Each structure stands twice: as structure tokens, then as C-alpha cells.
């Protein structure tokens, strides 16, 4: 009876089912972000069938593998908006650089003043970039990659869920500023949310995500040398 829980179809059905349900709920309750409702549904079902949540990610390898081609696919909106991107090259580079520095410095300072452990401090520095980049940076710094993945995911969820309302309140509604901010602050989660806003915002978010990943990786090179 319990065997079906370890069939790859169980995790796949549960995840896609919860996602489809969450998208349906979103049309009724637009304030409830589908990443929150779908995760809640999955956590409840896993608790009901007593499946250890730490093992779940390994059960849905197909979906995590598809993140690869899905990231590559972001090239399409970028390519389609190449004209506007070319016109805004200065804006893109300056804002992403400023955002990347802000991300590292503010995370480090806040953990330092609230007396977080050294391990947490090193692991939180790359939190604005998507987890595959964060893992590499964290490992090179001597942080804990598992913690970095978690910080990066929590950052993504937070930015994806609350970011749009925050940016709207600041009057940053144009798709260029909105997309760059969402992609730099909340990587793939921010980009997924920006694509729902408009294709232009989505393509600038994808750019912000990719470039901040590159810039952040490069900014850490002098830090490695300094730590020795």
C-alpha cells in the first residue's frame, strides 16, 4: 500500500495537481500567491500520508531537471525585446550592479548586527541569486550550501509574493524598472511573477536575474582572495 508513495508518479501528480489547483485558487483569490497555496497543499498531503518532507525533492527529479530548459527558454522573451534592451543598456547595467552590491552588503550587515552565526553570515551573502549560483559561491566562501539554497528560495518566495505591491507603492510600475528589480531581488521567482505582469517586464526580469547572477559571482572573486 505504501509503495505507491515512492513511485515517481506520486510526486509528479501531487506537485502538478497542487500547482493546477493553486492556479485555480488564484483566479478567485488573487492575493494568494500560487507558490504559497501549492506548497501548502503539498505539505498537508505529505503530512497526511506521513511522507518525510526532506525526501520529497528527490522524488520529483523530473520537475527539477526541467528547470534547466525552462531557464534557457527565458532567452525567447529577451530576444523578442532586444530593441528595447539595446536602448536601455546603461539602465540595465547600472541598476543591476547597484542591486547586486546592495544584496550582498545588506544581507551581511543585517545578519552581523543581529548576531547571526558565522556560518549563517557566509551562507546568506549570495541569497539574491538563484540557488545554483548561490551554492557555488557559498561553497567557495566556506558557507553551508544547503542553507544557501534555503535562503535563496525564501528570498525568491518573499520577493515574488510581496515584491510587486512594494514596487507599486514606490511608483516603480514601468516594466523596465519593475522587471529589473524583481529579477535582481528574487531571481527565478521574481521572473515568473514578472511574466504574469507583462512579457516586457518578464524579459527585463530574466535579464536582471541572469546579469545579477554573473555580477554577484564576479563581485565575490575579490572576497575569496581577501578571505584567502
Amino acid at each position: 500500500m505504501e509503495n505507491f508513495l515512492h513511485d515517481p508518479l506520486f510526486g509528479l501528480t501531487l506537485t502538478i495537481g497542487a500547482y493546477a489547483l493553486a492556479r485555480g485558487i488564484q483566479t478567485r483569490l488573487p492575493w494568494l500567491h500560487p507558490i504559497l497555496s501549492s506548497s501548502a497543499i503539498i505539505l498537508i498531503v505529505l503530512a497526511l500520508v506521513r511522507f518525510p518532507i526532506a525526501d520529497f525533492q528527490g522524488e520529483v527529479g523530473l520537475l527539477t531537471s526541467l528547470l534547466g530548459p525552462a531557464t534557457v527558454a527565458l532567452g525567447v522573451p529577451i530576444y523578442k525585446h532586444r530593441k528595447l534592451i539595446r536602448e536601455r543598456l546603461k539602465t540595465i547595467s547600472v541598476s543591476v550592479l547597484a542591486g547586486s552590491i546592495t544584496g550582498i552588503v545588506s544581507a551581511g550587515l543585517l545578519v552581523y548586527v543581529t548576531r547571526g552565526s558565522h556560518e549563517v553570515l557566509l551562507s546568506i551573502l549570495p541569497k539574491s541569486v538563484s540557488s545554483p549560483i548561490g551554492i557555488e559561491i557559498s561553497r567557495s566562501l566556506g558557507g553551508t550550501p544547503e542553507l544557501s539554497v534555503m535562503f535563496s528560495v525564501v528570498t525568491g518566495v518573499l520577493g515574488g509574493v510581496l515584491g510587486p505591491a512594494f514596487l507599486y507603492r514606490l511608483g516603480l510600475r514601468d516594466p523596465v524598472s519593475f522587471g529589473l528589480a524583481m529579477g535582481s531581488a528574487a531571481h527565478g521567482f521574481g521572473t515568473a511573477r514578472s511574466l504574469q505582469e507583462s512579457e516586457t517586464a518578464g524579459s527585463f526580469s530574466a535579464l536582471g536575474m541572469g546579469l545579477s547572477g554573473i555580477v554577484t559571482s564576479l563581485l565575490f572573486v575579490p572576497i575569496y582572495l581577501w578571505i584567502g
Partner: protein
Amino acid sequence: MRGFAILLGFSLAGVLLHDALHLPLPGNVIGLLLFLAALFGKVVKLEWVEQAANLLTGHLLLFFIPYVIGAAALIPFLGNNAVSIAVGIVGSTFAVLWVTGTVAKKTQPKQKEVAQDGKLSA
């Protein structure tokens, strides 16, 4: 299916390059850069990949769900550091949103309102 095959191929090429050359960027991002180069170089035509790409990007969130569940599993182990982590993540996330968005707005040519395109249906 041609579109999916092309996107998978670039993703795999990115991972292979990452492993072979030990580049400091993840395979996904290298794959994205290669794919952009192929689009700009007209090696890959937009219409070959557009449908598959729209399907994947329209449901980008789906592929993150396993990571959220993985992160949720770690929350009970944070202990004493939980407050510090929460302050760091919340403060820093809003700081990045604010700085990036504000710098982007200030450095743009005076708005001749970028035309909003239609919402992507997903």
C-alpha cells in the same frame, strides 16, 4: 517537440560546459547565454522554439515548487539563528528591490511610456 528538444539540448550543453570548464556560473545560465547567441546568430529560428518556450516560461513557478518543499524541511533546524536569518532576508530583499528599481527608473530616458504588452496567459 522540436522546440523542447532544442531547449533541452542547450540546457544540457550548458551543464556539460560548466562541468568541463569549471565555470563559476550554473549550467542553466550558460545554456541561456548559448541559446541567446544562437538566436542572435540566426542558428535557431524564433518560430522553432517559441511555442515550447512560452509553455515552459508560463509555468516557471511549477519547477520551483520542489525547492520550496526542500526549504520548508530545513526550517525546524534553524534554532537560534532564525530571527537573524529572517531579518537578513526580509531587509535585504526589500533593499535590493528598492535600489535596483529606483536606479533603473532614474537612469531611464524621460518616460515616453513603454507600451505595455498583453498579459501572458498561462
